[in-house]
């Protein structure tokens, strides 16, 4: 009984941390973009205001139960990913539901949210939303290839499918995986650009072209939930990258520094890039990133 309460409390604390950090990062992203464009930009807490404004909307229209569930699927995926990924190396108040094989499980649930969103979007009947989610899923088939190849390379090389085991390997050898398996790191970083759907790969949510794509019929509290889910999911993914390639983090400051430096990669790459079309994005991901992924697998097989 005590341990259940402990885990529940830990999950709530991790969620609050992920929400706060994720929303703050989204605000900092807007601030950085504004400074690059020689603007003053919104304050760093602007996204908190946006989320709360959307939450305080008085009417919330939905066209059916599946649209209602679409937002819920995204939130569930974000929270599941957050609970699987270890936030700290030996964090007491951040217990995670680690088990052997959670890396494979994570690969599955990371696409679950977008698939649920596709179901929800289908019910809105908005053509922009349908086009948007189609492009998003097509782009996902692009970046999933290098991402899966990178993770498979790590699994082969260290003979484990557990994230905590991979962190322990880095703690024992004293070398981060970004140095001991550099090709997997490169493939994962390039896949990350698509995963965050930042500027060159934001055809899915193109606000001027597609009227914001999948979320075009979501307003009010639904959009608030989707924004919060995006923030939590982003934090979970950043923490996963830190765990896999930078050996995890032992305290909050290290976590913030490491996740923010990972977050800067898609942001800074996005500011100076125009937008790729879907087929260009897929060609990009199936080119160099997949080659790096294959090299990583070969390296893993040889070094095994």
């Amino acid at each position, binding site marked *: 009984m005590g341990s259940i309460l402990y885990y529940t409390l830990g999950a709530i604390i991790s969620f609050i941390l992920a929400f706060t950090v994720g929303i703050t990062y989204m605000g900092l992203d807007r601030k950085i973009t*504004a400074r690059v464009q020689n603007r003053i*930009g919104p304050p760093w807490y602007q996204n908190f205001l*946006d989320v709360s*404004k959307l939450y305080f909307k008085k009417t*919330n229209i939905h066209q059916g139960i599946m649209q209602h569930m679409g937002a819920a699927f995204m939130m569930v995926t974000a929270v599941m990913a957050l609970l699987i990924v270890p936030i700290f190396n030996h964090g007491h108040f951040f217990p995670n539901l680690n088990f052997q094989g959670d890396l494979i499980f994570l690969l599955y649930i990371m696409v679950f949210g977008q698939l649920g969103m596709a179901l929800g979007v289908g019910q809105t009947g908005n053509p922009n939303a349908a086009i948007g989610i189609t492009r998003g899923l097509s782009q996902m088939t692009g970046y999933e290839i290098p991402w899966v190849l990178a993770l498979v390379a790590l699994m082969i090389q260290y003979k484990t499918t557990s994230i905590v085991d991979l962190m322990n390997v880095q703690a024992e050898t004293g070398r981060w995986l970004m140095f001991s398996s550099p090709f997997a790191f490169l493939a994962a970083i390039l896949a990350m650009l698509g995963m965050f759907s930042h500027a060159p790969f934001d055809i899915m949510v193109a606000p001027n072209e597609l009227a914001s794509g999948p979320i*075009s*019929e*979501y*307003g009010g509290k639904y959009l608030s939930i989707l924004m919060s889910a995006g923030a939590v999911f982003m934090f979970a993914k950043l923490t996963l990258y830190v765990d896999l390639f930078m050996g995890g983090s032992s305290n909050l400051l290290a976590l913030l520094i490491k996740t923010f430096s990972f977050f800067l990669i898609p942001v800074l790459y996005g500011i100076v890039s125009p937008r790729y079309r879907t087929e260009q994005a897929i060609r990009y991901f199936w080119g160099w990133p997949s080659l790096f992924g294959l090299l990583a697998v070969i390296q893993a097989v040889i070094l095994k």
Partner: protein
Amino acid sequence: MVFNDKNSQKIVDIIENYARKSSLWILAYGTGCGAIELPPTVTSRYDSERLGIHFGATPRQADVLLITGYLTTKTLKRVIRVYEQMQDPKYVIGFGSCTINGGMYWDSYNTINALDRYLPVDVYINGCMPRPEAVLAGFAKLQKLIQAGKADGANKYKENLDWYRTNQKKVIPNWRMPEYNW
């Protein structure tokens, strides 16, 4: 202990209105010439994003409907549909003299003269056309109204729906609006 008494409601209102006024998403419909004043307002020169004002993509997400200039009766029908699809609380800003009294189109056969006979307008911005400074001043006025809780155009529209519908049907001859859920 009663949580729903007057004072706690007042505190909740202050918080809600603060969030609403600091994050206004525009749905720029772009009916007339005024739409050309919006790009300078939101880009580097006047940078309205520092006040939390930026473009929302669809009616479902937006808070403010900008009527940027004259409205033909044909466009009015679309504007009404867009306005009714927006989520409460929602605000309307009328740009320029065309929305106030018709402006240079006051005796035209197919434009409307006074916008607030058809939609509840919260703030008018004067000028033909208003410059970005005037647009930002208009937004500042709207923010003041929201903080004071006085920008309740959406409620006014719901309460006086019959009156608005009569006026709308008077100028729109073929009223064939789809039955949809707000």
